[in-house]
């Protein structure tokens, strides 16, 4: 049996222990997502509805909305992000401890939406690495719950141990590029198109497999 590093960084079947630990970590992470409610405008109301008792996001373990970025896992950008606010949003994102995810809620944060103007960021993906886009103006709370579930499915396929052992990935250096890039994410520069489809997402295993094949 090799070192812990060896068994965890080789792929799926060979690293039995690694997959078990990964699974445990992912299970814990995905079921205790604490949202950072960045409610910037009208979408914030739907976000509150989602957290409230009627739609009850507590069923998915994500009801503990914290207003301190230090205690959050997933940032929900709910509303129109202006360039003046962008610095604050990025600072909040930087202050969130790793691992962290971002949901762009509504067309405003996904693409700028109808505000094709000098004041509005045309898609928060130009300043933050977005994991899930939710279309709608505003999206119903159900759509946002769907986004949380999609995010959970995405988290399931992550490989946290690898990151622990291999040190910083491009996520940690995300501040250096215009498009901060999460390890599992393909950056799509769609200015107007929004999608909530996970076909574009790659997990670590499929990336490794693609490398082997090529």
């Amino acid at each position, binding site marked *: 049996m090799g070192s812990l590093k060896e068994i965890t960084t080789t792929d799926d079947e060979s690293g039995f222990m690694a997959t078990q630990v990964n699974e445990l970590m992912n299970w814990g992470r995905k079921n205790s997502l604490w949202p950072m409610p960045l409610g910037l405008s009208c979408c914030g109301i739907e976000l509150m509805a989602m957290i409230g008792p009627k739609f009850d996001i507590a069923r998915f373990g994500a009801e503990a909305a914290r207003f301190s970025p230090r205690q959050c896992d997933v940032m929900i950008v709910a509303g129109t992000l202006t*360039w*003046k606010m*962008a*610095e604050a949003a*990025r600072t909040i994102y930087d202050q969130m401890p790793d691992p962290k995810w971002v949901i762009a809620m509504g067309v405003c944060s996904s693409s700028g939406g109808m505000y*094709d*103007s*000098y*004041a509005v*960021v045309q898609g928060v993906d*130009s*300043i933050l690495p977005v994991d899930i886009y939710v279309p709608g103006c505003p999206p119903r709370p159900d759509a946002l719950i769907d986004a949380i579930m999609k995010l959970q499915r995405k988290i399931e396929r992550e490989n946290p141990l690898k990151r622990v052992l291999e040190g910083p990935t491009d996520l940690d250096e995300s*501040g*250096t590029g*215009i498009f901060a890039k999460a390890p599992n994410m393909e950056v799509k520069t769609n200015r107007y198109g929004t999608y909530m489809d996970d076909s574009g997402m790659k997990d670590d295993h499929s990336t490794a497999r693609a490398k082997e094949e090529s």
Partner: protein
Amino acid sequence: MTASEHVLGLGWDDVSAVEERDGMPTLQVAPQRLRELLEILKRDLGFEIAILVTAVDHSPKAPRFELVQQFLSIQNNERLRLRCPLEGDNPSASSCIDLWPGAAYMERECWDMFGIQFDGHKNLRRLLMPEAYGHHPLRKEFPHQGIEPDRLYREWERSRIERAAEREGQEGVNS
């Protein structure tokens, strides 16, 4: 006697009544007379509230800008609108915040959006756009998608990354 009749009765040749809109009497006034007229409105005619200070960009017509001010008198149940044409691309007008302190924000917004200076305003900073923005968005020549809208953010981002790199470098020295 209404306020506009009173003002017209003063016999100034640079103040004239213009077309009335929305039932609000409107006076056109030359910039050099504006200050005097404002003092009369406040002191003699009982206009307690400045409802609106804004501007219109008439370019390419000259004079390019027109300052629009609206006032309300509660005691006389009266409203009055002033229109003041301003010459030039970077015009200035006299501020009215010593008479109506509530107009301070509106004048700041007017400066921010149109680039109209208000003489006598103590704190004429931008209200909505970032201080270093450098453009006045409601001017006609300003494109609606903006001129480098992300410039200030990118500058901030660069300085943030530099600071982070510096910090890392220092830590490296210490350890």
